[in-house]
């Protein structure tokens, strides 16, 4: 690691001010950022920890009935506290990494990082969540802009994520054998007005919606409705763990399984 300072603000306003310093960077759970620093792949001057900001932590139900998750809430807390309200999301959180990762890693860090194999982006996009920052609210459909790229501006902090609660939802993650991130992960959510299907792990452009499947499932929410639908493997990730064609195939399989499990 290169040298850096650490600041521990206790409010969003303080954090925003701290992040206006040159080369300052937000620190969530550090599960991505700390390994990056250890490998000397980043050299922030100041790390602004979001872990001491009470207003960014916890799970609650908002006035509009949406599930609100503070941007600095750990995966473990989501797994536990969202279970009664949005089981599909809680279940997803409970399978991220290992207990240490779940106790440190945060939803804000995961979404801001937008790793193409991460789980949360599928949940946010698949349930049509709103990403709330210190400056604005961003619809998930506008937030994810390709691998490791989001709509966030420099120094902008995810303070909260608001999830509409679906009638039924499920996330199916096919494990990449080494990292156990998603080789392909599919989040399916059924709402009164339609179905959303979001796919992570597969595309070179990061998380995406499988609109064809959404349409088919909108009229018939059953695994069979996905039969015969395919996605192209051309723009999908090809690496040691699977070709684009394999990932494209898994998108179909995981979607069906998610629909079947959502019931």
């Amino acid at each position, binding site marked *: *690691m*290169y040298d850096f300072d650490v600041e521990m603000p206790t409010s969003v306003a303080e954090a925003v001010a701290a992040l206006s310093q040159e080369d300052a960077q937000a620190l969530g759970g550090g599960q991505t950022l700390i390994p990056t620093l250890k*490998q*000397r792949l980043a050299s922030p001057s100041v790390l602004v920890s979001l872990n001491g900001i009470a207003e960014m932590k916890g799970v609650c139900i908002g006035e509009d009935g949406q599930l609100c998750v503070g941007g600095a809430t750990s995966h473990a807390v989501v797994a536990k506290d969202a279970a009664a309200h949005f089981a599909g999301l809680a279940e997803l959180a409970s399978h991220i990494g290992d207990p240490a990762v779940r106790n440190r890693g945060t939803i804000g860090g995961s979404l801001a990082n937008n790793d193409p194999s991460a789980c949360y982006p599928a949940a946010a996009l698949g349930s049509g969540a709103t990403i709330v920052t210190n400056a604005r609210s961003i619809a998930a459909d506008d937030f994810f802009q390709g691998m490791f790229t989001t709509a966030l501006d420099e120094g902008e902090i995810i303070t909260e994520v608001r999830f509409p609660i679906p009638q039924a939802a499920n996330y199916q993650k*096919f494990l990449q*054998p*080494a*990292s156990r991130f998603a*080789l392909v992960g599919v989040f399916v959510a059924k709402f009164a007005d339609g179905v959303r299907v979001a796919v992570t792990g597969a595309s070179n452009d990061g998380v995406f919606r499988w609109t064809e499947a959404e349409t088919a499932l909108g009229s018939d929410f059953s695994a069979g409705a996905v039969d015969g639908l395919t996605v192209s493997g051309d723009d999908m990730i090809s*690496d*040691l*763990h*699977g*070709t684009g064609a*394999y990932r494209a*195939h*898994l998108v179909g*399989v995981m979607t069906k399984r998610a629909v079947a499990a959502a019931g």
Partner: protein
Amino acid sequence: MPKDGGIGASSKRREDVRFLTGAGNYTDDINIRGQAHVYFLRSDIAHGTITSINTSAAEAMPGVVKVFTGVDFEAVGGMPCGWQVTDRHGQPMQEPRHPILAHGKVRHVGEPIAAVVAETLEQARDAAEAIELDIAELPAVIDMKAAVSADAPKVHEDLTSNLCYDWGFVEENKAATEEAFAKASHVTTLELVNNRLVANPMEPRVAVGDYARGTDDSTLYTTSQNPHVIRLLMGAFVLGIPEHKLRVVAPDVGGGFGTKIFHYQEEAFCTFAAKACNRPVKWTSSRTEAFMSDAHGRDHVTRIELALDGDNNFTALRTETYANMGAYLSTFAPSVPTWLHGTLMAGNYKTPLIYVNVKAVFTNTVPVDAYRGAGRPEATFQLERVIDKAARELGVDPIALRRQNFVTEFPYATPVAVEYDTGDYVATMDKLEEMADLSGFDARRQASEAKGKWRGLGVNCYIEACGIAPSNLVGQLGARAGLYESATVRVNATGGLVVMTGSHSHGQGHETSFAQVVADMIGIDENMVEIVHGDTANAPMGMGTYGSRSLAVGGSAMVRATEKIIAKAKKIASHLLEASEGDIELKDGAFSVAGTDKSVAWGDVTLAAYVPHNYPLEEIEPGLEETAFYDPSNFTYPAGAYACEVEVDPDTGKVTIERFTAVDDFGNVVNPMIVTGQVHGGLAQGIGQALLENCAYDENGQLLSASYMDYAMPRADDLPMFGVDHSCQTPCTHNPLGVKGCGEAGAIGSPPSVVNAVVDALQSGGKDVTHIDMPLTPARVWAAMQ
């Protein structure tokens, strides 16, 4: 009846108390006053010419003690290779110089180019970034077959080609083998890859060099499986330090799996730099460095052919293997694809003619050397896969085909130079069929099919040569070392014993099982025996731990030394009891005169040895301490039969192991619990190789699987509960304990049964798949199904 002490008892591993409570003393726990830290600048280019290297800015950085580059090591030796293989034409292998720090050229990603010694590791790292380095990239050779083509770039320009050696074994059998193939009624051919692996011991490598200016003594603390070998190699061949001025200590070591046998540049560097800087120098490998500097394992590409007669008897076998050496020869690399591989190609079968051809090849990759099993897993995998394929082609039961061809009479001289002393392959197969409930397989297959899964059964046998090795034999085969082992047994006045052994324990539990042996011989409590190892300053010259040799060779040395102790103690007892020596019996820790009730306790005799007031001083010396060296007269031949049942998910290609049964014949067993643990670990590694682990390079020589994000290690939930048995015991005939060795069996025996099972499952699902190369990842299995 389970015993509660001595040989045959499942004594709890005493060393685990310190390992599991954080009280171990690993090399990284050693910090010496005044210690500086070294950071190695490593090549990120697979092949290139170093056109310039300027360290002046780095030298001026805060905390920097000294910066070293290749020129600083021109005067010392290169890294030595401990085994010289002679090729088919009687020529010695090509042996390139292996510098401590790259000089002139870099030949693999991860090769150390410069070393910065500084007050702190971070300062060393900062300074390393300030080194100005220019490397003119050259085309890299990664693929072995491409590497031996005429126009391939040369890894070493001073060698004639990238071919290290072209080995034929047994060359005299070649013509007869070919004739047998011409006459065969059936020939089964299989091309396969034995995937490159990274050992990944839990503890990465560490070296601390220390130098005492006052006495000119050097000490190296290192994560080694064989400190004496390191002392000899580094002292004599690299740094020119005589052994009496060099001490090598390998304290607690957190797993080795072969990769900590070898002498590495970082060890020589820290020892050298400690003197050059006149202060202790420490290096601790990061996991990233481990991936690109620890010797890798396996990496063979083989074509194997099996000839059968009209009655399905094996009549001949021939193979052609390309074995990757990497960019340089690691310490024992040349022996692995040759003497540790070709000699095992007979397996458990009486195939009369065998010819093995191995082409060892240099490539721009990390050096490859022995990894748990070393050559024997490669042999077993080929043989047991080709037999399975033959059974399928002939439409016969794969177990019946194996049984029909078993060696059944012992001793058995194979056509590949070794003689099996004992074994009972029928017994292990019978036991396997019963334990694995093979008769219930069809019902289990139906149950899987009802769930939409394809179930497969894979069976294989294995044999290995352990207890390495007779020194005179390996000398003829090219070893530049002897392979005996040593032990000093020191009895204290009050009766406790300290055994100093040249074997090294890095997870095997020697401190427990070795103590059981000595305690059993004397008839005293195990806790009266302490096992000391890992320090050249107190253990006699030993060759260390690898090749499942510790109990068979090191244990035998310990038995011999203890026998000497007992013989002398009987003399003392006969004096104390005023009886003739021939009448003295030792039982349950007491010496008695046969046929009388006169006896004297062990502790009285040991006390007399050190307080010799009433003692036959004119006949024997006081004291009770003996040393023995044991050189085995043959290898030992553990063997067994394994069965694996898998389910394949037809939608995704994912394989899950549902049942795994391992029946091993290890000869006599000292501690059944430890043996079971060794088998469990071996199975985990073998299954890891079969399903998960793959060290992959791209065509430019960049390591694609350079961290746990991409290199899949087996985890507990990848593995089933194992069924393990070692009740079939044909004791080794030529060592005093009748033991054969158990450390590698699981890793050797398990990969073929996994692959056999997956092929069987795919066949049951109607897919005409005859082979898939390891690791059988979901993606590969699915691709094979398409």
